[in-house]
């Protein structure tokens, strides 16, 4: 299959059988396998200037023209050699300081020596990639924020988690990775079915999907009030369409990520389960989708009915899991207003369990905080945000790279406790406390939080 990445196209066939982390160079349409360690070409003349007092920008320092460079490229000459040519034809190169020379070479290498590294998919890679490439699809959830969620939510093997996300299945995948197939996850979904485009990029083994349940958000209220029935399911066609579009996005998103390193553009893309020649890790949904498609083609009504019946059975199972009200945590990261989600979904969580809500904006979480305080049954509420700063570390050239602030989103986290019914006066004190943080009265009641 042909894949286009960073203005290059190639076939992945040659990459099979290599270990993850292998670097490839692209030729005309296939993959070559160059050495892991490229010998650093040192310019034979180690001449360098000390400052730029005599360097004039006249636009004529590079003696090669655009056409010359294009000709070199068309000849299929190695990128490394093109870079060497550019250096040799740069009149100012020798006057530049050593650091500036380094920088110049780096820049040119990035442009002319395209190498691709194939790496194994993981939350680290996928969340970095999504934030860089498709931030809109994951509500601008930055990877450090996702990391906080997994820790604050005490995600681990054996938990029974409730996840409500509209982040293309990235958050779900991150939770699944941390649970390693132990325990169960109930994914609440809006509309016709859960979106799991990013989840399928992880290449989870099939057993991981055995304890992954889904439940439509539109049924939550009826479940809480006890009027739940399976009569009105979200229509099957919707689900099909949803899955179909999932399948398509999967195709489009052969996951790729760019990390800069040394002096090359190192690129990572994932191939699920390379060692196994045939891709056995077709995700459960895709299979279902294929099956569905065939059956739809055959127009086999009985099969359809059976599917419907099976889905209903699954739904009843999931509903039963929820009504036990003993979930070990709740993770919310969606495009919806968090308050109604939280107030309803916390019903299903056992006491003394963590919950984490992500929101791209601070204001909805302010309201959510207040509402949760009124509702009670939660303690240790915390509204937070993380800032991430990357550094360039080189001898005598260390400094921060860029500050990523804002745009990483906000988190509201807390711990559930046993809700005492009929003790609403504590919320009143809460309100007082919030209005007047400095107030010294009702010392004893102050500990109600």
């Amino acid at each position: 299959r042909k894949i286009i990445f960073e203005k290059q196209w190639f076939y992945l066939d040659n990459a099979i059988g290599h270990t993850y982390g292998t670097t490839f160079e692209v030729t005309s349409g296939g993959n070559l396998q160059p050495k892991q360690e490229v010998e650093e070409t040192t310019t034979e003349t180690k001449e360098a200037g000390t400052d730029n007092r005599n360097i004039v920008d006249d636009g004529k320092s590079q003696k090669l023209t655009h056409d010359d460079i294009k000709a070199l490229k068309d000849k299929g000459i190695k990128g490394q050699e093109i870079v060497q040519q550019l250096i040799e034809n740069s009149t100012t190169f020798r006057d530049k300081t050593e650091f500036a020379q380094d920088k110049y070479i780096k820049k040119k290498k990035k442009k002319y020596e395209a190498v691709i590294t194939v790496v194994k998919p993981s939350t680290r890679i996928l969340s970095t990639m999504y934030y860089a490439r498709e931030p809109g699809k994951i509500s601008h959830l930055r990877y450090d924020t996702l990391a906080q969620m997994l820790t604050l939510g005490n995600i681990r093997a054996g938990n029974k988690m409730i996840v409500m996300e509209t982040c293309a299945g990235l958050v779900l995948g991150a939770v699944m990775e941390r649970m390693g197939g132990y325990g169960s996850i109930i994914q609440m979904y809006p509309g016709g079915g859960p979106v799991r485009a990013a989840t399928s990029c992880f290449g989870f083994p099939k057993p991981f999907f055995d304890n992954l349940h889904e439940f439509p958000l539109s049924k939550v209220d009826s479940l809480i009030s006890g009027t739940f029935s399976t009569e009105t399911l979200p229509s099957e066609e919707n689900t099909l369409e949803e899955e179909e579009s999932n399948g398509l996005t999967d195709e489009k998103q052969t996951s790729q990520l760019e990390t800069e390193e040394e002096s090359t553009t190192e690129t990572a893309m994932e191939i699920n389960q390379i060692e196994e020649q045939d891709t056995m890790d077709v995700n459960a949904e895709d299979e279902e989708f294929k099956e569905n498609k065939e059956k739809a083609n055959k127009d086999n009504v009985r099969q359809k009915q059976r599917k419907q019946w099976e889905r209903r059975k699954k739904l009843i199972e999931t509903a039963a899991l929820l009504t036990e009200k003993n979930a070990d945590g709740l993770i919310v990261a969606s495009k919806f207003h968090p308050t109604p989600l939280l107030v309803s979904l916390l019903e299903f969580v056992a006491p003394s369990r963590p919950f984490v809500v992500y929101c791209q904006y601070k204001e909805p979480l302010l309201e959510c905080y207040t509402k949760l305080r009124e509702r009670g049954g939660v303690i240790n509420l915390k509204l937070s945000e993380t800032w991430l700063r990357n550094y360039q570390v080189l001898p005598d050239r260390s400094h921060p790279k860029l500050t990523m602030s804002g745009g990483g989103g906000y988190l509201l986290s807390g711990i559930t406790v046993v809700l005492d019914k009929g003790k609403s006066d504590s919320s009143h004190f809460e309100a007082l406390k919030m209005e007047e943080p400095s107030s010294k009265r009702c010392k004893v009641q102050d500990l109600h939080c």
Partner: protein
Amino acid sequence: MSFVEYGDTIKDGDTAIVFLGHESMFPVKVQHGTVTQTKYGVIRHSTDLIGKKYGSKVTCSKGGWVFILHPTPELWTMNLPHRTQILYSTDISIITMMLELKPGSIVCESGTGSGSLSHALIRTVAPTGHLYTVEFHQQRAEKAREEFREHGVEHLVTVTNQDVCKNGFGVSNIADAVFLDIPSPWEAIGHAKSALKAEGGRICSFSPCIEQVQRTCLAMEEYGFTEINTLEILLRVYNVRTISLQIPDLGKAAEDNSSTGFDSSNPSNQGSLCASPQQGTVQFKSGVPLREMVGHTGYLTFATKS
């Protein structure tokens, strides 16, 4: 209770967290016949704790009450007895994700210190993974062992009392990830490389000073680590407050006052035709940053062995 498994009810021998409210809590070891003093009075373990559900409200002798919480690595981090400077959950989260830890991972750590990170690592790699942690200070190593035993996670961790810079981690070619929090991590990079699996793995080093980072990066490059990346993560916490700001009196006539477009929260203000009209206010909710926040913990340097 265990740090790697939720339990519903409080049992004899559990470590529980007593939550007094507003960020104040402390850990308690539950034992029959023991009492714990709080500022709201006494908690009697046998009657007040054992058999109760985690997350319950417990009324103390003076009528005040506290909540009893199930221990988690995060709560432990906030309450553990410090034997060294510790890592907090903000750094721990990014370390866990960037080292790609999950159930089944084999991790090497040095130094163990107060065990703040150790508990989080054990939580993540359980039930099939393992933590090999090295601490050169004998008393601290001993104390850590004791804590792991108390918390029901000793089967998931091996504490070794030796100098990681001289003697390494005591294992070779089995780790998926290595974490270093020592004064001179560059001296342990070689040992870290040999501890990691032959097919590769991830490494992270935590250092407060940039000079340490520089040396570590050089050492990593020397040993052939790739994807070297240094970052710093800062936590900002916000207090949720309702703020009211006064609307300035610009000497407008009272009837114009209501047309300023603000929701006057002070109804007596409207239609009052006094010569000195009462000041109106605008109320809104705000997330107010804390007056003081942690500005720097340390630099985190990650790299890959492949």
